């Protein structure tokens, strides 16, 4: 694919149109970098996933890597967790982003401050956020459980309890990412023509009706963007999980991306690449139908 992109556009364009104001060679530098460092590895991964591979030599072993991936509980757990993590984080970002988006576009005290403070975590280093919350979520000494203890609640073991470690990381992911979702919703809500509000008001619509019939449906493009972006991000999420739990305790908070890294570190390049191919397939299987569904809903309005 890379070669066709690189070679084809300039020649016919220049010959046919003389001096086109939109020359094909404008694609060239981007196409070379993208082709060599994204497309070639992506295509190559489908072959290397079927091999036992040390960077220098590869031996074809068929689907053994995939069989192993779904047979070892540690790897399967990462597969399941990826979907839980992505669904939870993107669901929470839609709900909270919409709520905050409405709140922060209304006439509310301290609106400028609130907008700034909600958005700021988006800009902070993920590793930094991970380390900070790892300390705050410390089960015995951490500030969160200290505060909970102060009001008489026995705080959970956040990152050390195998049953909730993944959820704790997802919670921090939402904390860090909700600002972007809010921003997208704010942009969507303010672009709703004000005639709709006025019409609803004349009809005597209550706040719930207004939300159900005006704000929610008319900010659907924003919902669509938030769902798609947060799912794409959630399915490949690595930085936060790796800096907070390294997939632990045990492998209970592993996701496909952390499995890929662990297998890479251990020198199982073929298996690591198989994990990558599984991640591709998971992403395509979820994101493509979903974007189509979201787009169809938009047309129906």
């Amino acid at each position, binding site marked *: 694919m890379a070669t066709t992109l690189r070679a084809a556009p300039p020649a016919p364009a220049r010959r046919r149109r003389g001096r086109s104001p939109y020359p094909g060679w404008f694609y060239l530098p981007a196409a070379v970098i993208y082709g060599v460092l994204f497309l070639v590895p992506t295509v190559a991964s489908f072959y290397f996933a079927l091999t036992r591979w040390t960077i220098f030599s590869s031996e074809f072993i068929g689907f053994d890597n995939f069989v192993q991936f779904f047979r070892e509980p540690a790897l399967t757990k990462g597969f399941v967790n990826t979907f839980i993590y992505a669904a939870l984080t993107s669901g929470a970002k839609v709900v909270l982003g919409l709520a905050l988006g409405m709140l922060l576009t209304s006439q509310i*005290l301290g609106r400028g401050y609130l907008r700034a403070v909600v958005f700021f975590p988006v800009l902070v280093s993920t590793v930094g956020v991970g380390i900070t919350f790892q300390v705050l979520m410390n089960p015995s000494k951490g500030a969160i459980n200290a505060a909970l203890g102060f009001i008489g609640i026995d705080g959970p073991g956040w990152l050390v309890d195998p049953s909730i470690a993944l959820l704790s990381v997802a919670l921090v992911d939402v904390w860090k990412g909700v600002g972007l979702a809010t921003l*997208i919703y704010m942009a969507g809500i303010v672009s709703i023509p004000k005639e709709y509000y006025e019409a609803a008001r004349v009809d005597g619509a209550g706040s719930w009706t207004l939300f159900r019939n005006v704000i929610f449906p008319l900010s659907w*493009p924003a919902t669509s963007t938030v769902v798609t972006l947060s799912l794409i991000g959630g399915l490949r999420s690595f930085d936060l999980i790796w800096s907070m739990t390294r997939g632990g305790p045990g492998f209970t908070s592993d996701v496909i991306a952390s499995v890929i890294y662990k297998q890479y570190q251990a020198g199982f390049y073929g298996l690591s690449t198989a994990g990558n191919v599984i991640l591709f397939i998971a992403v395509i299987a979820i994101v493509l139908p979903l974007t189509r569904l979201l787009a169809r809903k938009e047309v129906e309005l």
Partner: protein
Amino acid sequence: MSSTVTPPTPSVAGTGPAPVPTTVPPAGRVGGARSALYRYGVGSLAIVVSVVVFLVPFAFILLTAAMDATQASEFRFAWPRNFQLWDNVVQVLQTRDYILVIAFINSVVLTLVSVTALVVLGSMVAFVLQRRVSRWTGLINFLVLTGLIMPPAIVPTIWVLQRFGLFATMPGLILVEIAFGLSFTILLFRAFISTIPKELDEAAVLDGAGPLRLFFRVVLPLLRPVMVTVILVQSVAVFNDFQNPLYFLPGDAGATVQLTLFNFQSQNLSSYNLLFTDILLITIPMLLLYLFFNRQIVAGLTSGAVKG
């Protein structure tokens, strides 16, 4: 439809009149006890919640960064017994022969070069892609979307980089960041370019401008609003990136700030004050960028991402 009609739901109705989020809607619509209750009641509640949820973690970073090592290891949210922020900063910078200073330089070079390349190359592609429909347009659009959706194949990328002798080098990592960031950049630019009338191009061409002059002198300056968005989004992504440097730039010599932070965490768990000083230091560039561009973020996004 005049403002004398009392809004039945002052809470949500207030969202309507605002043309852009940064401007305050006309004050005429706010009136009556309910809207005052909303404005001040819900507003104060939101401020209190935001302080607990968002400000306390940042205050915790700041306070811990100013503590001595003993107090920092208690993990408590407290005022530093010995306020030694400056000492900690000096100590962090000197750690392992100024590795953090080197990492800072590396991260800044990485961010500057790859974001500049993304802006130039991405806008060139977006311009031609939006303006000229040819039989390649469909394929190129497909490839752009693929790049946005598909996670990169990691070990095969290392394999390619090694073939070119670029593995574990800064130019290699820069090229990787460009390759992975192109799709989103192109989408943002393309959505914005579609709002620039084509007549402008034709006028420039009639005046004798070649493709290069047309693009760099006429079109590119008009892309300023979306360029700010692209620069901000990609700078944050590249500067804060952890996964790509971890894979493609291993070793201390070329470490980026995110890698040094991660290594600090793995190695000296005893000195949490230094760890948090490091977090504080590497947050400052992004904070400055944000303060600089705060107002333009929303404007850029409304004109780009959501419509696209």
